[in-house]
């Protein structure tokens, strides 16, 4: 069991999707505690990768691929957790690129790094309308909403989303982080966002700050923070 967890950890680290999914299934079938799989196997690997990235030893293609494997394995574990009346104890962040903007690379990097930092991330994709953001906040009740815009032409849409949230009475329910090349701290203040991040590492820092310093919303530590 220890060994299996180690293999899972290793498979996530090197983004070996087949091996990671296989190990996850094997552990679940063997009756391992889904929370242990999630935290000691999956999240700890992401955490380690995040640290390697911080040290300049891991590179983005590796981090992004591992985050994807992490997400897929997490989806396998989810039903087992639910069957025990539990759910992921991580803070949820919803993220997306605003309407009219087809750039999602920066947003994808932020999503991947957030996963290494232990957040549960729902990525709504690109060209996301204000209505869809509002709907997602209403249904999923995330702690944080991240709005990405790369273009001077589309950053206005960040304002539209924040106004739509207010219109739906949801603004107090969620912290909004805005980012993207043309976005500035001043713009964030102007449109009433809660925070601004200039780059992906800062987005992680800011997100952690908004949830009080740890991405795990209580429950076992397991290196997820």
């Amino acid at each position, binding site marked *: 069991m220890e060994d299996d967890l180690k293999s899972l950890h290793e498979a996530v680290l090197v983004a070996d999707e087949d091996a990671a999914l296989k190990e996850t299934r094997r552990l679940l079938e063997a009756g391992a505690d889904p929370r242990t799989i999630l935290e000691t196997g999956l999240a700890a690997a992401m955490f380690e990768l995040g640290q390697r990235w911080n040290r300049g030893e891991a590179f983005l293609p590796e981090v992004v691929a591992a985050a994807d494997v992490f997400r897929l394995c997490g989806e396998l574990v989810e039903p087992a957790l639910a069957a025990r009346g539990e759910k992921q104890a991580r803070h949820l962040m919803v993220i997306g690129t605003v309407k*009219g903007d087809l750039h999602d*690379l920066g947003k994808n990097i932020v999503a991947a790094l957030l996963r290494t930092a232990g957040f549960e991330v729902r990525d709504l994709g690109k*060209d996301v309308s204000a209505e869809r953001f509002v709907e997602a906040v209403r249904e999923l009740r995330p702690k944080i909403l991240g709005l990405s815009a790369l*273009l*001077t032409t589309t950053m206005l849409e960040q304002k539209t989303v924040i106004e739509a949230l207010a219109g739906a009475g949801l603004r107090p329910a969620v912290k909004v982080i805005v980012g993207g090349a043309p976005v500035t701290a001043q713009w964030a203040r102007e449109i009433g966002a809660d925070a601004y991040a200039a780059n992906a590492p800062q987005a992680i820092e800011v997100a952690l700050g908004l949830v009080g310093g740890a991405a795990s919303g209580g429950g076992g530590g397991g290196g997820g923070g």
Partner: protein
Amino acid sequence: MAEMEGLRVLSESEIAEIHEAALAVLAECGVFVDSPRALEHLAAKGATVDSATGRVRIPPALVEGALGGCPSWFTLYDRDGGEAFRVGGREIHFATGSCAIRYQEGREVRPSLAEDLVRLAVVTDALPQVEVQSTAVVAGEAPKTLADTYRLYLVLKHSPKPVITGAFSEKGLFDMMALLGAATGSRTGEAPCAIFDVCPSPPLKWTAISAANVMDAAAARLPVEFVSMPMPGAASPVTLAGSVVVHTAETLSGIVLAQTVRRGAPVVWGGAPVGFDMRYGTTPLSAVEATLIAVATAQMGKHYGLPTHTYAALSDAKVLDAQAGAETALSGALAALARINLIAGVGALDFVGTQSSEKLVLDAEVCGMIQRALRGVEVSPETLARDLIKGLGPGGDYLSQKHTRGHFRSETCVPGLVIDRLDRKGWEGKGGLDASARAKERVAAILADHRPRTLEPERAGKLDAAMRRVMAYAGCESLPFVGEG
């Protein structure tokens, strides 16, 4: 004099392979166009359009036909109707970098304001090596909805040099056309003094605004510069050849859109290749492989017989330091050796997010050196100076010769004071300043002394009126520098 051969990184057969690959991408995969209007138009012109998914597949014949309609050069004018130069052929011209949102003085960086753009216009105007200005920074005072038009207003008002610019919305392009008409007194599309950058969204996508800008600018015969931005390993294949294929496919799709709206509309085969740093996720424009892509894509453009452009002669450094100088000179020289007609980026730092007048005056010196290098070595009886050498013999003194007086100005690139050529004592006597401090002094001197040619009063009045109409529409009462008329 031997014409200096252009730098080539692709062989003729490799160019053909890239062309075939790009045609296959366009025919079999196509591009995504987020504009019902453009989709309808392209379907009517023979593209295979899936309006549900926005996917446009373009048959090779449509591409070849569109390429056949593009002019191989056009004349760019200044604001006051004077011919500036031809865009195309082997000439190269440097332009200020555009699209920055910050202005930097020394180490101080701030969100850019109208006065900063005016400074950049005046400084560019004073630098003969930089023949094209750009709407280099956004002016923070302007509401976002008219930020594009206000940028153009400011530069038209403060320098007659031709402009590289771009619209931020569909309406913006028309507002900008109105400003250009007022400032130049010419009809839209005649004697153009502005080139419009339009960017596809990598990879293989066109936003509604970009698609509309291409169509509307082409209809008005405004020169459109396609600025595809391959990003190896992130938004295009990590292999440089694959990135060139994506760039070629994107640019060809833009040309099809423009030429099917108006055959013969002037277009520029441009680009802003970037690197993608796998550690930080940043997009360095001065990564050496980005410059290689620029050279390769320009070879494609030249193969199609089109005027070419790239971002180069810029740096991703955050201050005016050794990195800034090295990156600017290396990418600028490689782009120039490739004979890329418009090299835009001068003055830019920090992933083109920041503009600096200090960097601009230093870069201008680099541009001057590059232009001199491209002129090469002129060989003629007069320059060989056989008789002079024989006449003076061993130990001859050339300094006092008429031959020297007659030729030193054309043979030598004499740099400005930003480039230090004093002896050590002289340098120490001048305060021992480094390049960045000397650049600061040069900028101060230009701003104190240089007066660009002013806009003729009647046209200035019309320009103000046009700007005020745009402001009134946006409910904006006043902006810096906009006259009351």
